[in-house]
């Protein structure tokens, strides 16, 4: 440190104002800590990727596209959605949410500082503010919550015009005629489905053998069928190459195809933002995947904690929300642990896929004896009235005890249904508990209860279940 640079003393520093970071800042302030929250974009950065340019904008777009598609399916003529008007509506939603958080941060006396932060010492960092100044801070405790950014593929670097990342895709003010989406994971499938419903010709380019390769094939089937119905072309086992003159060059084994694409959206995963923070100066070493190894209480070492997309586990906002108070309490000297029984995950495709807990294969790998009960969505009255009787409910229970190990749903409102499964798993509930719980008729949630009832009936016929297990 150069003489003359006086470091300002900070009690608890939070780096990154996304879901994990702002939650940590608020929790720490409520605990009476003096909190400074640093984000690259200052107060504009509050809410992070999720609220500003990720989950929230994408759900708004998905809702708009789905509304149009359902109206058309119901025989209602609707004008083609206007993406320009959508952008205004999206901005209003984002502003309402982030203004709310900004006012909470203000009310809690959290100081928000804008600029790029780099650590200089185990207890110091420098923040380069947008106006070119360098502010030095000396902190007692620090929470790392810098999140992640989209993976950039060589040859397909986002330019904001023809090649876009997910953020750019959600900023489209005009619908491109032809879109290629590189990566058919959850982000690619969500964006591809929405753009196809809005009227674009969409091609999904996926390196693996099918869309949503990380999700059980039985759950993905209705989504794949719906993509086909929407006219979405799916290229699997495919590597995206160059984008030139409105064509994306794709290689599938020996074969090379040119896909018509006015716009290419790259959705090939995310990488944690841990490479430009000077973590070595902080005395923190990320793992080979860029994630920071943490203890159960989310601390990396005394006075340093890491949460959200930079800590191991799924890169999901709700995981970050849950980790934030644990990390802060740990830094305040409490004995705590981040110990969810399960972290639910959702794909907002058509239909939605939601999954929580163990699949049968994962349960077996843990040495458990799972029983899988599957009931189709087609048998559900409410799903029929929604015009969406597609999908399935998969309940995974433990043989013998009936303890709920996992709930996996493809179908309408799956993203909401999964909450019931999460509560069941957290509470150690059994299939009988779910079967004996009254669910509202007519709702899609009855299908979860139905699966539980079937599981109970099967368990009461031991001969059947014994046969099943041998197979």
């Amino acid at each position: 440190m150069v003489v003359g640079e006086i470091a300002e003393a900070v009690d608890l520093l939070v780096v990154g104002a996304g879901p994990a970071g702002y939650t940590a800042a608020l929790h720490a302030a409520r605990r009476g800590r003096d909190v400074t929250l640093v984000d690259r974009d200052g107060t504009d950065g509050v809410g992070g990727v999720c609220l500003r340019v990720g989950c929230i904008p994408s759900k708004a777009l998905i809702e708009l596209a789905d509304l149009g598609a359902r109206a058309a399916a119901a025989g209602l003529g609707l004008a083609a959605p206007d993406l320009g008007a959508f952008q205004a509506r999206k901005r209003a939603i984002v502003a309402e949410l982030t203004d709310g958080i900004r006012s909470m941060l203000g009310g809690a006396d959290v100081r928000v500082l804008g600029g790029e932060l780099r650590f200089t010492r185990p207890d110091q960092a420098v923040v380069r503010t947008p106006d070119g100044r360098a502010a030095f801070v000396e902190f007692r405790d620090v929470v790392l919550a810098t999140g992640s950014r989209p993976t950039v593929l060589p040859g397909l670097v986002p330019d904001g015009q023809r090649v876009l990342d997910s953020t750019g895709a959600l900023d489209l003010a005009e619908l491109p005629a032809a879109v290629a989406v590189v990566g058919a994971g959850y982000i690619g499938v969500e964006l591809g489905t929405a753009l196809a419903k809005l009227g674009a010709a969409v091609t999904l380019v996926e390196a693996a053998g099918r869309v949503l390769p990380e999700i059980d094939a039985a759950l993905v089937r209705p989504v794949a069928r719906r993509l086909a119905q929407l006219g979405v072309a799916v290229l699997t086992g495919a590597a995206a190459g160059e984008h030139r003159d409105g064509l994306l060059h794709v290689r599938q084994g020996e074969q090379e195809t040119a896909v018509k694409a006015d716009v290419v959206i790259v959705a090939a995963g995310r990488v944690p933002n841990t490479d430009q923070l000077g973590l070595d100066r902080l005395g923190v070493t990320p793992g080979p995947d860029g994630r920071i190894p943490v203890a159960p209480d989310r601390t990396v070492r005394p006075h340093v904690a890491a949460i959200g997309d930079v800590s191991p586990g799924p890169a999901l906002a709700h995981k970050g929300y849950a980790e934030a108070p644990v990390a802060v309490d740990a830094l305040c000297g409490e004995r705590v642990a981040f110990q969810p029984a399960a972290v639910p995950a959702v794909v907002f495709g058509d239909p939605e896929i939601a999954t929580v807990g163990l699949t049968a294969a994962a349960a077996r790998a843990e040495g458990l004896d799972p029983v899988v009960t599957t009931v189709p969505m087609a048998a559900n009255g409410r799903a029929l009235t929604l015009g969406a009787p597609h999908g399935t409910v998969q309940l995974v229970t433990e043989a013998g005890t009936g303890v709920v190990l996992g709930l996996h749903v493809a179908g309408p409102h799956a993203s909401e249904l999964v909450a019931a499964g999460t509560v069941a798993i957290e509470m150690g509930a059994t299939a009988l508990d779910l079967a004996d719980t009254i669910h509202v008729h007519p709702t899609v949630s009855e299908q979860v209860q139905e699966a539980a009832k079937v599981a109970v009936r099967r368990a009461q016929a031991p001969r059947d279940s014994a046969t099943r297990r041998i197979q």
Partner: protein
Amino acid sequence: MAPLTLNVCNVTFLTCRGLAVAEIVFRLPDVGEGLAEAEVVEWLVSPGAAVRADQPVVTVETAKAQVELPAPADGTIRELARAVGDMVPVGEPLFVLETAAATVPATRNRVLAAPSTRRLAVEHGVDLTTLTGSGPNGRIVPDDVMAAVAAPLKPEPEPEPEPVVQQAPVDTPDTEVRPLRGLRRQTAKAMTAALAVPHITEFREVDATELERAHALLRGDAAARGARLTLLPLLVRVLVAALRRHPELNATFDPDRAELTVHRRLHVGIATATRDGLVVPVLRDAGPRGVPGLGREIARLVEAARERTLTPRDTTGATFTVSNFGSYGTWLGTPLISPPQVAIAGFGRVRDAVVPVDGAPAVRRVLPLAVAADHRVLDGADLGAFVATLERLVTQPLLLLGEDG
């Protein structure tokens, strides 16, 4: 016999003549004493024998107790993986049981407990995987956690000894090599660990005339009820009172984290000589107990130590240790601290001695005592203050009447 949780078996399903069968590899469970291994003492069944669930299969000896390990399910013993006399590390296979699949208990790596219960467990430092829940399917409820809070404090795992490169000793006509086993081996390890603690020790001879008088009175009272009362319970009572005034000695120290944990509850280790060697059973929650209660508990623990029937709970979690070396005639010695504890008190044999009383020689009953403390966390002044309190209470035991229970 120590209660055991059977969380260390591997289950493989096989299909045999159209019947579902499973093979359970039974591994040496962690018996909760912080011990890494046990010695196979006796096989109670032969290969091929049919066993019922919970039927004892093998007796193993850890440093602290002999334990019978039961079959986890009905079935047939297919293989005994170890011979009598083998040292088996925790987690290594002991025997293989073949069983009908339907009767195999699920191996639960998962803990069934609501989020609020899990939070409670973390707050209190309770490892839920070691608990058996009282709820349905073994679900752990808050009461189970609070019951476990009263259970053993986990001793620090012993660091692996540095490998020493030297020629293995062999028997010669002039020598006999005796491998250390069980308790002896454990004592050797513990004493090596004690060597890493920088001890400071204070010695003092204190006038125990009044304490002995109190002892004589109480002993008579106890005898009238058919009980035997030694001096040790009184000495423990005195220690309890002194530790209340100097809680920093009732502590455990973690040098890696540079953290001292001061314990509000007082679990006193009672160093006990047995036929097989030194055992230190733990008198839990000595704080609220009166002298007769302390006496009964000490008698039970010493008896169990000599019979080798101590449970893991009886041998772990001491926060302070007492060595009553006077009971085998020692005048005074240097007690060794058992880490992570930070102090130990040793009492010698009470004897007649000529001491000056008001400037004139007088014969008094004198108790030699030595208290050692870990100099990393305590200084001579702390130690001196504690010993001064001890002396005051020993010389004037009536002061104990002023103690809150």
